[in-house]
């Protein structure tokens, strides 16, 4: 329950006087508060720095270290203070949390150190106030990502292959992570070298070389040393083809591989050569052949396998694609507008180069990008005016794309992070509210059952009862008063739905309900209070005609088998645990109870129960099923 609420509890209890004239039953006795009435100042020494605070302040959060009896472990009798060997700077924030109810995250501290302190003092980080929550989450995510990257990098490169990997898997791994084996590294560098060689050859091919003897004109080197270049090209293409085929063979999913960008680039890089081989050497198609040779320049994109930077750039452009598209569209609009204006302004003049609007496009683009080649120039005054407006607006337009791309990139990146953060926060907040509600419900129901234990187990009750905070006592008493006022009792959702069904339908064959209730829901542990459960079950028996379906009887039998199979040597130890378990029932975190229903009843009973009597948390079971077993196996909540 939230801290501040504790302050209001006395007032809510006092207001319960208003129910008294209405009450149908007598009010229960209030819990005896033996603790000293007057508030005392506690001294907390954290590594030499002495803090002082009221005891009430610390009691506000009973499920933390300082608020619970756990701090007694740190009490120093000699100096009459609580001593913690922790960071005093951090403790300041922790103590402020108790004082103000809000936990702040100090920005200069390391996130991990802070988390560790919170864990030590038993404070859940979700309580961090909204003011610091975003910062905290940012840092935490950053840290986690960095750790994940580190571990991933470590694993990816150094992880040994699974022992029975096929040669195919090994080959794929060699291709993806060249650092794993020397062979892969050699292959990686060789392919890189040949990509470079191929690209350089393509470039040098076109450089004019000195003409051979007997010719006057300069020849491009490609034609002079045709054979040499052809051999080099063949060698490169052979290597690329070989590499592509190897990758195709090794790929775990060939279809996916063939559709990936890198493989498309590979194909485009080597296709022209093969097409050139196949095509005959005639003049008609040589034009197309030349076009194909242009595609050879795509080999340079193969470098992106070797370079991380290229990949990031590609991703950036891809992520900003829509913004770039819109920018292009607006540019096109501006070009069309200005081109039209220039065309009509220059229409009249003789010998004007603005022959048509499409022709004016060229002028507009050249002017707007401030290139100004000078091949098209306006002559009329109107043309010159509009031309200058065009170039001025061009300056503005060119200034736009660069920050747009940069800001878009960072905006998209941060936007994703913020959306996830908000969604997580929302979920956490809702979950917190739900958990708090369920927690109080379960705690109160537990309290009622403990009260019903009665005198015979007075020692255990007292112990059990003592472990709860005074606040919880008083709150439960208040709820109890309300019950007496209205002469109705609180129950949980499950029992309520059962009651509804028993009252409406006479005959129940609810095998499914009993199963579902077994697998269900947050039923709080009734480990300490078998008698109460039995009494409740008896009442339910009285209510319904046939309360136990065949299904549940069958389960009962199997459960019964289970209980008897616990040999007597275990029984005593289990009973010995009973006292521990009764003490455990004071644990406030019922909501954290994970219901681990053991194996379905079909399994052999021996296997499903823990064999050792060590204090392993037992099995949480449905009250209904358990009520009918007379050997009450006492169980604790996890």
């Amino acid at each position: 329950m939230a801290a501040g609420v504790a302050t209001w509890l006395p007032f809510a209890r006092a207001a319960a006087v208003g129910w008294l004239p209405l009450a149908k039953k007598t009010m229960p006795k209030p819990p005896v508060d033996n603790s000293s009435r007057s508030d005392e100042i506690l001294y907390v020494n954290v590594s030499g720095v002495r803090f002082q605070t009221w005891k009430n302040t610390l009691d506000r959060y009973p499920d933390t270290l300082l608020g619970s009896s756990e701090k007694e472990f740190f009490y120093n009798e000699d100096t009459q203070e609580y001593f913690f060997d922790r960071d005093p700077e951090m403790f300041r924030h922790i103590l402020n949390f108790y004082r103000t109810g809000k936990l702040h995250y100090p920005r200069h501290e390391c996130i991990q150190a802070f988390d560790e302190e919170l864990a030590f003092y038993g404070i859940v980080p979700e309580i961090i106030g909204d003011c610091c929550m975003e910062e905290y989450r940012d840092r935490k995510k950053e840290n986690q990502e960095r750790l994940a990257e580190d571990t991933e990098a470590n694993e990816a490169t150094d992880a040994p292959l699974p022992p029975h990997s096929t040669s195919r898997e090994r080959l794929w791994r060699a291709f993806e992570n060249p650092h794993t084996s020397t062979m892969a590294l050699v292959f990686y560098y060789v392919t890189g070298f040949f990509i470079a060689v191929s690209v350089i050859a393509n470039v040098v091919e076109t450089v004019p070389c000195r003409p051979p003897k007997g010719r006057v004109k300069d020849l491009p080197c490609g034609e002079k040393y045709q054979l040499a270049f052809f051999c080099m090209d063949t060698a490169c293409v052979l290597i690329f083809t070989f590499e592509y085929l190897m990758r195709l063979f090794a790929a775990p999913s060939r279809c996916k591989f063939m559709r990936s960008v890198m493989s498309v680039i590979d194909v485009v890089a080597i296709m022209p050569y093969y097409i050139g081989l196949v095509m005959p050497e005639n003049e008609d198609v040589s034009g197309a052949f030349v076009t194909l040779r242009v595609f050879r320049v795509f080999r340079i994109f193969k470098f992106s396998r070797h370079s991380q930077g290229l990949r990031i750039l590609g991703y950036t452009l891809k992520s900003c694609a829509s913004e770039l598209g819109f920018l292009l569209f607006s540019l096109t609009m501006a070009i069309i507008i200005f081109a039209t204006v220039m065309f009509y302004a220059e229409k009249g003049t003789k010998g004007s180069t603005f022959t048509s609007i499409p022709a004016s496009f060229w002028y507009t683009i050249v002017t707007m990008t401030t290139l100004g080649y000078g091949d098209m120039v306006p002559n009329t005054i109107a043309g010159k005016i509009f031309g200058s407006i065009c170039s001025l607006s061009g300056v503005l337009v060119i200034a736009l794309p660069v920050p747009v791309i940069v800001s878009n990139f960072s905006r998209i990146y941060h936007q994703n992070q913020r959306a996830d953060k908000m969604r997580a926060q929302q979920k956490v907040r809702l979950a917190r509210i739900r958990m708090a509600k369920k927690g109080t419900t379960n705690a109160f129901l537990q309290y009622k059952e403990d009260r019903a234990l009665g005198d015979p187990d007075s020692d255990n009750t007292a112990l059990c009862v003592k472990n709860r905070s005074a606040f919880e006592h008083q709150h439960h008493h208040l709820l109890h008063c309300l019950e007496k006022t209205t002469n109705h009792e609180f129950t949980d959702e499950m029992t309520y739905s059962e009651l509804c069904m028993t009252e409406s339908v006479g005959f129940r064959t609810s095998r499914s309900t009993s199963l579902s209730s077994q697998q269900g829901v947050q039923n709080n542990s009734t480990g300490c209070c078998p008698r109460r459960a039995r009494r409740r079950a008896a009442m339910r028996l009285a209510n319904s005609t046939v309360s136990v379906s065949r299904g549940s009887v069958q389960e009962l039998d199997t459960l019964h088998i289970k209980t008897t199979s616990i040999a007597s040597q275990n029984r005593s130890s289990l009973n010995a645990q009973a006292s521990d378990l009764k003490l455990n029932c004071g644990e406030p975190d019922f909501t954290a109870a994970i219901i681990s229903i053991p194996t379905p009843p079909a399994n052999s009973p021996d296997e499903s129960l823990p064999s050792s009597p060590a204090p392993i948390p037992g099995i949480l079971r449905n009250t209904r099923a358990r009520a009918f077993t007379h050997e009450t196996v006492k169980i604790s909540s996890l």
Partner: protein
Amino acid sequence: MGLVMGTFSLQSKQVNYHKDKADDDLEMTMVCHRPEGLDQLEAQTNFSKRELQVLYRGFKNECPSGVVNEDTFKQIYSQFFPHGDASTYAHYLFNAFDSAHTGSIKFEDFVTALSILLRGSVQEKLQWTFNLYDINRDGYINKEEMTDIVRAIYDMMGKYTYPVLKTDAPKQHVDAFFQKMDKNRDGVVTLDEFILSCQEDENIMRSLQLFENVI
């Protein structure tokens, strides 16, 4: 292009203007109220100085501004009674505390009411309860008022109760109450009838002593 940019900038200016107005409103609500001196409160109530100190520390921590408004009340009650809907009852209780009908409870109101409830005489407690039930403060509790109060109390129980809550349970409760309290069967309960009937009932008398140790 320039026109487009101009229109965009105009729009953003308007947004800023709205934000400034909100800031002004925020400043106005940060009213602070300080209670009277400790000695005066000690004289007016049945609490000792220490108790008042403890109470005020808790109160001030929760409400630094020194006043509790109805929404806070409802929130507090909904946390104490998470099973059902405590807002209606919190509303009636708020009105009972806020005797001056100012719309907010100051520390003096808070402490005065607590003093009556915890340290007051039987007469005072019963009178306070009567005021709680008498919603319109006309000196009479009629069936409608009582039904509203009882329904609000039952709302706090929520849906999941044992035995199942029937729809006429509040009405039955109110009828039983009137049976007991309304001596002259005129359909309303006056303060004297109320106090007399409560004093006759031993259970109520005994229960009144239960809450003395709350603080």
